[in-house]
């Protein structure tokens, strides 16, 4: 794989994570437990959508095959998506969504924090803007994990169930492979080695869970495959909804 196609692939991984999670969070609009949370989740979703747009646009530019953000978002099938399985899993109840937000925002925060010093100027700039947004996403999820974990018996039970639901998808976030190895090697790396994010992520999430009176689930079998395009059935359904309008009316605008 040339360095150019490696960069395209890497930008797609980051961009697809953001795009798919934005779509999942958007499902909460008008269904959140409170109007205020409704707006909060829409804000987080829109932040992620903005990141996805910048990253997919850049992937298309580097690829140089004339594909823009819309072509990449709306005209790829699930096998061509490179997001981690975590973000495509169904939202579940508010506790499942909160658990995923904590896991993912804490991961994304460590990632962008390091990607700011990428040798690739565009990725560095996108990360520099996104890290502030993600800092808030992480804080918002933290506040809810603390309240649900340390709340009533029922909220504690649900928060634990939420963690159990998302935990099988955690390991995949930190998987290094040939691509990340190649792009994160040398003195001026383009990418961040996902494996090096695990410890700081663990430190943050572990402290939040401890304060909330929750234990991280142990001994869960890890599920992976998203980075290779091997997705769960859930992504197909999500994409059907995401892509339907654009595919029915190509080039539609308003």
């Amino acid at each position, binding site marked *: 794989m040339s360095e150019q196609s490696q960069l395209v692939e890497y930008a797609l991984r980051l961009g697809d994570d953001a795009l798919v999670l934005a779509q999942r969070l958007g499902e909460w609009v008008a269904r959140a*437990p*409170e109007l205020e949370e409704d*707006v*909060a989740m829409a804000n987080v979703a829109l932040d992620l959508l903005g990141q996805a747009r910048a990253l997919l646009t850049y992937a298309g530019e580097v690829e140089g095959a004339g594909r823009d953000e819309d072509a990449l978002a709306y005209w790829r099938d699930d096998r061509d998506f490179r997001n981690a399985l975590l973000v495509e899993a169904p939202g579940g109840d508010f506790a499942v969504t909160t658990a995923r937000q904590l896991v993912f925002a804490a991961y994304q925060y460590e990632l962008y924090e390091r990607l700011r010093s990428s040798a690739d100027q565009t990725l560095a700039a996108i990360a520099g803007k996104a890290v502030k947004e993600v800092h808030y996403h992480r804080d918002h999820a933290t506040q809810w994990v603390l*309240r649900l974990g340390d709340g009533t018996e029922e909220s504690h039970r649900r928060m634990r169930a939420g963690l159990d639901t998302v935990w099988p998808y955690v390991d995949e976030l930190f998987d290094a492979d040939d691509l990340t190895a190649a792009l994160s090697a040398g003195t001026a790396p383009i990418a961040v080695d996902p494996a090096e994010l695990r410890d700081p992520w663990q430190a943050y999430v572990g402290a939040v869970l401890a304060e909330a009176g929750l234990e991280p689930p142990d001994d869960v079998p890890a599920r992976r495959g998203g980075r290779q395009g091997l997705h769960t059935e859930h992504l197909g359904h999500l994409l059907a909804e995401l892509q339907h309008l654009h595919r029915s009316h190509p080039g539609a605008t308003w």
Partner: protein
Amino acid sequence: MSAEWPLWEVFVRARRGLSHVHVGSLHAPDAEMALRNARDVYTRRNEGVSIWVVPSERITASSPEEKDAFFDPAADKVYRHPTFYEVPAEVKHL
């Protein structure tokens, strides 16, 4: 759930040097979340640099029935307004 979440009044300072201005209210389980909800609901279009949240129940308001006794006596005390001074034209920001 709304019935259980208390109401908060939100005050936003738009810029440094201005006062906090009441912008509305919202429901939140506690002060920390109220601050975050206020950020999400009232400052998402770059409206502020500082937010206060105050429990609505802690605000004591004048009542409409007291309006006459409260405010009418001030209306005819023209001498309370500094309208009898000649303001020199050079003084701009009085």
